[in-house]
């Protein structure tokens, strides 16, 4: 049984990606029998390039995607190099979980609440400083250049990159390396870049590519924060896909294909730049400069990181306040009348999307954790550890743009008669939940001293008993954490719900996105805050349950995530 789990896992999540790409590219070349496309042709591509403002869409996609990825990476590296082993890193580490838990859409909405013309930022300086007696007529979030989108993405990607880099730092002798370099006279940040980064980079390369791919193809955040006339490519493709005029499906497929090519090309360019940087870096290291003027850099990096976390947390707070605001006049900093009425009025409307969100997230996370545990346990029993190539497979659904293959997945679902069912929705979410659950659990699981299992076996326990009685309880903390990660990822998914749900299912995320376009901030606040609350609740439970269960087992403190 166990032997088949890795194969089943790959089939479940790589199969759809591959099939989805085929199912997207065929219509892009005119093949979609259901809509009468039987002859291969280049017409969809020709039509795509006649779309007005396509060049603007592509330019927006590339500028916002690269800007968000590069700014996030630069911030994380600058901060960690300047502050390695100091208090700010500890503080950031502690604040990481709440920001990581918040879904992308909620972050986007939170940022919009802060930065829009009538948002908190403008209120804080009006009218005494700005003279604005009414919300100014400015386009700030969204803005025509996609700056708000870049900001939103940075708020979300910085915590992710921080998490991955901190995890990677734990696996290399960073402290000792740094101590040696500093004893040779190198400044702290210079020493970090010259000796620690080369150790860490191979481990954060894939997460960085994933961030780049995500930023280039984000849809949900773009719907909230990006300009709409025209929008970046990915949300524009989604618009074509949802066009009632079915012939648009061909253009949409070609657009999805273009999106896919853009991401592949961008990763290629990034990879080239990375090699160039590595060459220059080697020369920089060999030149032996010890670094100077680091103090100013340290202050700037710490300040910038503080700004990211501050804005992120303020955004959350803003949603919470709006959700209980009854009357909130410009330019008051806080509502003049508070009331839980927004929640009471939305209760009925919330019930069904809320239930869908929770049930799908629980199911997807549970299936993912079962598959991942099966893979990891199989790996330990057979002593076959997958190499670094296998990691590329796990990252595949994170690197391929969602819009590039979800349409194909939808075609598959329609053909198999599964579209619009709850199970299809769970499966669509599983594609993206699985990699994150694997990434969260594989490290801690593999790090468990294998002599515990060996000792238990030698005490006469069967491998099954060792799994259930020793490994699983000892690793309960990371297992529940991985479960919470899976739950949070599912709660935040937008496109998989749109494509696999066949329009029959709404989740808090899809509702929040559609409300964000127009609507009443009080209602948006309710949806966005609840959407952020669910993952946060999951993480709280994942931390609280083992802490309570093992409150009298001091030795368990060493087995954290």
């Amino acid at each position, binding site marked *: 049984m166990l032997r088949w789990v890795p194969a089943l896992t790959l089939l479940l999540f790589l199969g759809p990606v591959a099939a989805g790409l085929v199912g997207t590219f065929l219509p892009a070349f005119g093949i979609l029998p259901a809509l009468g496309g039987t002859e291969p042709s280049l017409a969809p591509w020709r039509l795509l390039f006649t779309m007005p403002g396509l060049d603007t869409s592509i330019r927006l996609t590339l500028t916002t995607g690269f800007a968000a990825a590069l700014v996030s990476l630069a911030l994380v590296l600058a901060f960690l190099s300047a502050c390695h082993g100091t208090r700010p890193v500890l503080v950031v580490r502690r604040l990481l979980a709440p920001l990581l838990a918040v879904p992308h859409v909620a972050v986007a909405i939170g940022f919009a609440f802060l930065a829009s013309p009538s948002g908190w930022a403008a209120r804080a300086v009006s009218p005494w400083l700005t003279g604005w007696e009414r919300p100014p007529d400015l386009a700030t979030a969204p803005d025509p250049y996609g700056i708000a989108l870049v900001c939103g993405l940075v708020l979300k990607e910085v915590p992710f990159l921080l998490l991955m880099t901190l995890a990677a730092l734990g696996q290399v002798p960073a402290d000792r390396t740094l101590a040696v370099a500093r004893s040779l006279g190198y400044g702290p940040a210079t020493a970090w870049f010259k000796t620690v980064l080369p150790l860490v980079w191979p481990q954060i390369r894939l997460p960085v590519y994933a961030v780049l791919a995500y930023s280039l193809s984000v849809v949900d955040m773009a719907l909230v924060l990006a300009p709409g006339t025209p929008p970046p490519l990915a949300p524009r493709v989604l618009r074509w896909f949802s066009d009632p005029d079915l012939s648009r499906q061909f253009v949409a497929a070609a657009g999805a294909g273009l999106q896919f090519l853009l991401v592949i090309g961008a990763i290629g360019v990034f990879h080239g730049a990375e090699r160039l940087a590595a060459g220059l870096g080697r020369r920089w290291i060999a030149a032996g400069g010890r670094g100077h003027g680091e103090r100013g850099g340290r202050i700037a990096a710490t300040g910038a990181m503080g700004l990211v976390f501050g804005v992120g947390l303020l955004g959350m707070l803003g949603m919470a306040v709006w959700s209980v605001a009854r009357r909130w006049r410009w330019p008051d900093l806080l509502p003049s009348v508070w009331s839980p009425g927004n929640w009471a009025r939305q209760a009925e409307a919330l019930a069904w999307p809320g239930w869908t969100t929770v049930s799908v997230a629980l199911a997807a996370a549970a299936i993912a954790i079962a598959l991942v545990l099966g893979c990891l346990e199989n790996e330990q029993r057979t002593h076959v550890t997958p190499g670094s190539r296998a990691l590329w497979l796990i990252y595949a659904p994170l690197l391929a743009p969602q819009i590039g293959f979800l349409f194909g997945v939808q075609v598959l679902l329609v053909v198999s008669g599964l579209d619009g069912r709850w199970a299809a929705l769970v499966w669509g979410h599983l594609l993206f939940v699985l990699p994150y659950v694997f990434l969260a659990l594989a490290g801690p699981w593999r790090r468990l001293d294998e*002599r515990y299992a*060996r*000792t238990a076996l030698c*005490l006469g326990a069967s491998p099954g008993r060792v799994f259930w009685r020793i490994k699983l309880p000892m690793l309960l903390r990371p297992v529940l954490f991985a479960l919470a990660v899976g739950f949070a990822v599912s709660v935040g998914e937008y496109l998989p719900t749109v494509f696999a749900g066949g329009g029959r299912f709404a989740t808090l995320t899809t509702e929040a996105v559609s409300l964000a376009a127009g609507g009443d901030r009080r209602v948006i606040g309710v949806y966005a805050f609840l959407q952020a609350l669910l993952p946060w609740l999951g993480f709280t439970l994942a931390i609280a349950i083992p802490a309570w269960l093992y409150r009298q*087992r001091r*030795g368990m403190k060493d087995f954290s995530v």
Partner: protein
Amino acid sequence: MSGDGSLVLDGVTVALDGATLIAGLDLAVAPGEIVTVMGPSGSGKSTLLAWLCGAADPAFRIAGRAVLDGVDITRLPPEARRVGILFQDDLLFPHLSVGGNLGFGLPAGLGRAAREARIEAALEEAELPGFAGRDPATLSGGQRARIALMRTLLAAPKALLLDEPFSRLDAALRDRIRCFVFGHATERGLPVLLVTHDPDDARAAGGPVVEIG
């Protein structure tokens, strides 16, 4: 080769990446006897013990046979070999109480009362009566080492393997724990295979010494 309770190694060869670490080791450990295998680190002595409990890293090429009490255990799964092992770390399961750790060693099928009685008896033997409910993390190094031995013995092994079990203990404690472990093992008439690089261990064991590497 009859069921005389001895542990017999028959032509055991350990190789890694084509380099032979142990070549054709023949060894017989009688019940109640302690045989010491000495060698520097990397000589394959820990691998030898891992192979005896059925958990050798597949990167090693290992040939030969192991016979325990007349039964060829070479191809048996670890849990069916009845070989107890102690490492240099006590490896008490941190999520279980002291009593829970001891109970994990007990064979299934005993009644609840019988299990508790056996656990308490083992605690008495370890000179730690009434410790069943304690968190292992609150025990001293010497106490943990004694519990680890008791857990191993409760599983009723037919042989005991010691993988440098005393090297992490400080000097004063080391003698006492050594006496405790050796005493219990010989009392039960177990064949004991000790690997170490500490000559004091070999001297205290008092049995034959085999040098490898």
